[in-house]
């Protein structure tokens, strides 16, 4: 791992409302990613993982406020003026969203949408060149008859094809970082694997830093280098992927593993963690996961857990009991 990370978020906080009525949804989230690395971010919906990533790029929803530090290629971007941030978004950082149907402009041809991404960061591009580039991009994401399909509208495509368009758009300006927010969740199961394979392939070939946001730990197996588990707007466990699957330290991580269809035994009834993540707003004292945790003790309800480091130093978890017995139970 290199010493200046490609992308580093520290103590990110996102809150809704102002003053005393402000409710925090992302509560001091920190993570980092090296160039060419694949980081999985996993958590239930409502855990704040998507909100955190959008906010880091200044795409937080109206009425929300973002604090904390976001560094990209060593440069602080959280405080950048809007115009400067726009130059980075889409050029050096690409994004892919969950539902490709609602993420594509329904009244613009897909080609025009891709070419817009190109023009925005290369104003002097000629129409011909842009069309040429867009065709190449379509070929790269394996859309057949690329040139003709540029003229289609999003609703003329299937779900998988639309996601390919989104990916083509995100890598149009060969970014250094790609953030994919649940890129396969809205797709048919059969298509999911294809899209993941393609993303992984592109990541290797372009040496992209890839942030893969998902609610399904199973998706990350085989693709991610490292995994950050997010709960209540904080990273509660972070570990190399093989370490995490072998020795999950946080009860929440174990719950997510049991809840993943890919990771549980065939035929076994799928587990679901009781309860829901806490809504935006103040948390009770102690560990935010305590109310849903099957092994929470008195200390969990009173004292917020510190960030504990695994004996080998590669992993960390925010749990009073992590690595305490040397082995998880």
């Amino acid at each position: 791992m290199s010493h200046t990370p490609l992308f580093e978020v520290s103590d990110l906080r996102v809150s809704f409302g102002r003053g005393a009525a402000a409710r925090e949804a992302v509560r001091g989230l920190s993570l980092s990613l090296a160039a060419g690395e694949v980081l999985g971010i996993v958590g239930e919906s409502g855990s704040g993982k998507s909100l955190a990533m959008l906010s880091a790029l200044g795409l937080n929803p109206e009425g929300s406020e973002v604090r904390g530090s976001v560094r990209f290629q060593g440069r602080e971007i959280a405080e950048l003026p809007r115009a400067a941030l726009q130059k980075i978004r889409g050029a050096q950082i690409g994004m892919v969203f969950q539902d490709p149907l609602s993420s594509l402009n329904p009244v613009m041809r897909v080609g025009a949408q891709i070419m817009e991404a190109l023009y925005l960061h290369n104003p002097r591009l000629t129409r011909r060149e842009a069309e040429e580039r867009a065709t190449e991009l379509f070929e790269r994401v394996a859309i057949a008859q690329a040139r003709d399909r540029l003229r289609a509208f999003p609703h003329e495509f299937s779900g998988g094809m639309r996601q390919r368009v989104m990916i083509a758009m995100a890598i149009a300006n060969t970014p250094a970082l790609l953030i994919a927010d649940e890129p396969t969740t809205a797709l048919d199961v059969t298509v999911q694997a294809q899209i993941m394979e393609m993303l992984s392939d592109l990541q290797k070939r372009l040496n992209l830093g890839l942030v893969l946001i998902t609610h399904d730990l199973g998706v990350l197996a085989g693709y991610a280098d490292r995994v950050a588990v997010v709960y209540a707007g904080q990273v509660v466990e972070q570990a190399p992927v093989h370490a995490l699957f072998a020795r999950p330290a946080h009860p929440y991580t174990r719950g997510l593993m049991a809840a993943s269809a890919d990771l549980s035994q065939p035929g076994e009834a799928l587990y679901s963690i009781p309860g829901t993540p806490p809504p935006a707003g103040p948390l009770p004292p102690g560990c935010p996961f305590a109310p849903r945790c099957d092994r929470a003790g008195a200390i969990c309800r009173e004292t917020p857990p510190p960030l504990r480091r695994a004996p080998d130093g590669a992993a960390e978890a925010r749990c009073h009991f992590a690595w305490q017995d040397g082995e998880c139970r």
Partner: protein
Amino acid sequence: MTGYILRRLLAMPFLILGIITLTFALTSVTRGDPLAGIISDRQMTNPEVVAAAKARWGLDKSLPERYVTYLGNLMSGDMGTSFITRRPVAQDVMARLPATLELVTAAMIFGAGAGITLGVVAAVWRNTIVDHLARLLALIGASIPVFWMGLALLYLFSVQWGVLPGPGRLDPRATTPPQVTGFMTLDTLIAGDLRLFGNALYHLLLPAGVLGWSVAGTISRLVRANMIEILHREFITTARAKGAGELRVVLRHALRNTLVPTLTVIGYSFAYLLTGAVLTETIFSWPGMGSYAVSAARGLDYPAIIGVTIVGGVIFLITNLVTDIAYVIANPRVRPG
């Protein structure tokens, strides 16, 4: 979709017949003595004059007979003869229709421009002072009587400040170009007289502005609501994620997605414009259907009243039909009931 359009087209003749029948029925059943509009009070006591007038204008026949005759004549484009101008009503209406259409078209362009701008501005800066001002401005437009606003602006701009011309379509001293389309702006262009074209445009400014303002409010309200909804869609985030600036996001991505409902409301606002044109034309001495209708109504000129009402109704009907069909074509997924 084709079925819907076909059904609407097939219903047209019946609706037009309905318009004719209703106009005829309402004006015939309710009216007082039409003779009052034809002959003077003094001659009302002279049975010979009365009988002659009745025979001359067909008033000695029964109502159903008159209706059938009227329908028959209408088929051949005959709307009867005006009591006042003593010319065929159809001819009068045709002569005055272009002036009204020109005024209404200009008003629609103005109203749509102002309405869309206000709506977009209000949506982008929603719940700020800008939004409240834009909404208030639009609401005032919908609340102000056009005839009063016309008077007030004519007084201010023309009399007090002298920056805009007085009533009429051209300067009184100007020579009218040969009539081709009946649109003064087009006819002056066809005549190749740019100075006169400028003059016609100049005269159009105030009446079209006054009239257009009355529909700007409705349009801006709809544009605002649609824009707010669209600005929360995910593809807007996609556009921002691409690095698009706010201006581009608003104009190219959001506004384009509100185009269909906007065009629809602009189409429907035609009715308000026709209504308002009646009053605007009166204020601005605009020689259109509206001022013709007013003088017919004041002078109890029944053939003219009936004729103008039918023509107005048919124009209105066609505009709404075109708007509805355009909406369905632009939105194939909509299933109208």
